[in-house]
């Protein structure tokens, strides 16, 4: 879908543009690219915001002679991905204008840019460390940072010292005055923050005045590891970033490298990829359903959902050898062929799962207490979803049918007939309905993909035997993971290691919209809304 030139003249009208490029979408994932000056960035962002574009991703790249902020804007209905670059030659303290008042989603991206690169965004409301501890003095993603391996215990003890001192100082101030409202830590170790997320709640009695999510408790920095490892060595990290829906992360990374190398996997591998990704999506939604109802106080559905999930894990373990952190995709195909026992296991599983779905609908949806706990709770309007860049089931619960499998079809999804379920509710009940309907759609896709799977090799003939060398250039590839739009922005310089590999993960944007959904609710709703966003922490902390 190449964009006609006159159609997009409004983007650069009256702005100082250093260079404008027209890209072939199929080759590297962008439609257009502009390099503009720093001071016209805010004006351009204003135009995109008014024309229903959402800020897909902001990646800071550390080039030898300058710092570069790459903003990507995209639309829901008609895909038109524009890459806007802003450069700043000052290498010690680069300054860029902030977009956090136009796009609230940019707030966390900019804090992460400051955290990793030391890039300062002027008049950003709260420019502090996001993922690293407060005592960190390093900017790790800069090319000149060598990493301090071996001093981990000293760092931790220093952090303990700092926090004890901090605790003494703060608790002295608050001790003497009887305050009406108070702060409570729904902190890293809490039964209903899935993984290690800390919510600092400002409460008055039981009512939530303000929520401050604190993340970074499972930060392992996959992006910096990518720069240390070559393309093949980095594939295991994909299974450990979103360990609940790891197959779609494999799909995203391997798809990106195949697009960069310009090669196609073998047809049989395409079908194996799609059918295993869909099974993994069902397993992810089942895990969400079990833990979500556990948060609302119903302890029994957790065991039924895990029972179904075990059947899927058996099949995927038969296929890939792993239960959770899959490393199954290879450049140009998949690692193993389908064992013969898998077919009839799948044929036995699908009707059982459909039966169970009917039970879930009757037992959960009709339950008056479940409805009262989820209806009109945690409402996310369409405009908020646009400004935070929310994607996936949370967006489809606001009535917008944005799904990468239909919006930017990849692999063999055009041949599968399935719908994108959307519900207009905008609240946690609608998100529940979307995910349950998605399980049915994924069942259909898995059925068709397994039925239409041709015979043949599981690796394309041009599949590289050794870790490939990607030609220089910038590439972007997006995939629909269980939580939303998972994309990767690759800057390759022709060597065996990527120069910069930015992961645009869906839960990062979804969680940043949490504080806007929660004000005015009770403590019990905080748990319900957090559960409905279905976040996976290492995907956010990377």
């Amino acid at each position, binding site marked *: 879908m190449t964009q006609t030139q006159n159609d997009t003249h409004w983007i650069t009208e009256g702005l100082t543009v250093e260079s404008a490029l027209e890209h072939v979408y199929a080759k590297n994932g962008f439609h257009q690219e502009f390099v503009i000056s720093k001071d016209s960035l805010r004006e351009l962002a204003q135009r995109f915001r008014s024309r229903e574009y959402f800020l897909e991703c902001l990646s800071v790249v550390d080039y030898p002679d300058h710092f570069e902020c790459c903003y990507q804007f995209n639309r829901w209905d008609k895909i038109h991905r524009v890459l806007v670059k802003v450069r700043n030659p000052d290498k010690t303290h680069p300054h860029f204008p902030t977009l956090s008042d136009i796009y609230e989603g940019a707030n966390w991206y900019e804090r992460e840019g400051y955290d990793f690169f030391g890039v300062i965004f002027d008049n950003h409301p709260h420019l502090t460390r996001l993922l690293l501890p407060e005592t960190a003095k390093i900017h790790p993603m800069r090319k000149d940072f060598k990493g301090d391996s071996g001093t981990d215990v000293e760092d931790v003890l220093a952090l303990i010292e700092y926090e004890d001192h901090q605790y003494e100082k703060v608790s002295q101030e608050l001790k003497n005055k009887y305050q009406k409202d108070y702060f409570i830590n729904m902190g890293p170790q809490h*039964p209903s923050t899935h993984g290690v997320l800390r919510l600092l709640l400002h409460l008055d009695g039981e009512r939530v005045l303000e929520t401050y999510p604190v993340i970074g408790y499972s930060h392992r920095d996959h992006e910096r590891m990518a720069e240390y490892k070559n393309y093949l060595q980095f594939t295991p990290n994909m299974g450990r970033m979103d360990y609940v829906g790891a197959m779609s992360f494999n799909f995203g990374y391997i798809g990106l490298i195949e697009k960069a190398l310009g090669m196609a996997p073998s047809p049989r591998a395409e079908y194996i990829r799609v059918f295993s990704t869909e099974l993994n999506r069902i397993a992810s939604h089942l895990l969400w359903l079990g833990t979500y109802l556990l948060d*609302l*106080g*119903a302890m*029994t559905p957790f065991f039924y959902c895990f029972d179904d999930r075990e059947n899927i894990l058996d099949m995927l373990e038969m296929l890939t050898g792993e239960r959770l952190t899959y490393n199954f995709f290879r450049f140009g195909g998949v690692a193993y062929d389908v064992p013969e026992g898998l077919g009839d296991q799948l044929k036995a599983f699908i009707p059982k799962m459909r039966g169970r779905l009917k039970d879930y609908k009757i037992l959960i949806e009709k*339950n008056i207490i479940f409805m*009262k706990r989820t209806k009109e709770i945690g409402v996310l309007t369409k405009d908020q979803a646009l400004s935070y860049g929310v994607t996936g089931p949370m967006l489809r619960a606001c009535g917008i049918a944005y799904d990468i499998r239909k919006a930017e079809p990849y692999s063999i999804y055009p041949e599968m007939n399935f719908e994108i379920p959307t519900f207009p509710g905008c609240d946690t009940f609608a998100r529940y309905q979307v995910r349950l309907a998605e399980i049915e759609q994924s069942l259909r896709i898995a059925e068709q993909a397994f039925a239409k799977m041709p015979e043949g090799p599981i690796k394309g003939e041009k599949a590289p035997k050794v870790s490939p060398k990607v030609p220089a250039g910038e590439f972007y590839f997006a995939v629909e993971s269980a939580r939303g739009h998972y994309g990767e922005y690759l800057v390759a310089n022709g060597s065996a290691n990527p120069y910069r590999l930015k992961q645009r993960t869906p839960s990062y944007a979804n969680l940043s919209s949490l504080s806007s959904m929660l004000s005015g609710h*009770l*403590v019990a709703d905080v748990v319900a809304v957090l559960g409905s966003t279905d976040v996976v922490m290492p995907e956010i902390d990377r």
Partner: protein
Amino acid sequence: MNELFRIILSLVIVIGFVLINSLVLVWLERKVSARIQLRRGPLYVGWFGLLQTFADALKMLGKELIFPKNCDKVLYFLAPILSFAPVLGAFLVIPFGQHLVIQDLNIGLLLVFAFSGLSFIGIFMAGWASNNKYSLLGGMRSVAQNISYEIPLLLSSLNIVMMAKSFRLSDIVRAQAHVPFILLQPLAFIIFITSALAESNRTPFDIPEAESELVAGFHTEYSGLRFGIFFISEYTYVFISSCVATALFLGGSHGPFLSGWAWFLMKAYFVVFVVMWVRWTLPRLRSDQLITFAWKVLIPLSLFNIICTALALQLLKQ
């Protein structure tokens, strides 16, 4: 002399029964929840896992007791004691058989409600004393919930008093010789069971110790046997309210073949099973929905029920 002997004997029986019964109820709860959740529950500790809760109790005996920093030491120490102490008193008047009752006081029903009303003060003290925000939330919620559900509990039991013309539990049981009151007062039975569930903090009314929101509610800071005592008093209150429910509504120890106390225990344990069954099927209500449900639905219904019973008595008089 035999009065003193009788007191000591009944004391030993009641304390033994309370301990054994709470261990059995915890084991029963884990087995029932396991069956509902497609799994087996405690299996390898003792025969059929029967010794499992005994092992838990013994382990708690050996756990360290920690006083949290800047907590109110006296209240913190008193809270579990006050929540366990009234438990024994409630067993005084429960009519296990025709004459199998320790002391048939003529204010039987009032005594049971008086003692069961005392326990939530222990819960609130625990919530406030441990100087922990989660416990504070749990304690405040338990206050609001217990005072809201005390009234429908008392009002719905008044209907039975009106029909049995006495507060003495054995009289009430005797009055149900032909037809258990559950058939004559179905609405009062529903209100009674709902508010009894709320009084003993069972799902869907278990907001004081909501695991998913408040980590462990009012007993967040309690370790070892102090937490164990809260556990024992909760399960004993479930048993007491089901005994009162059988005495008031299900015709106590009346039954065709078996002896009185066997019928009574069977009915009581059936009500306990229903309470456990409800726990593992329903989600938890939010605290404001729960309280408004009591004030907007249960109390008006029970007031209306009293007026109807009074009218019925008036008509039946002629």
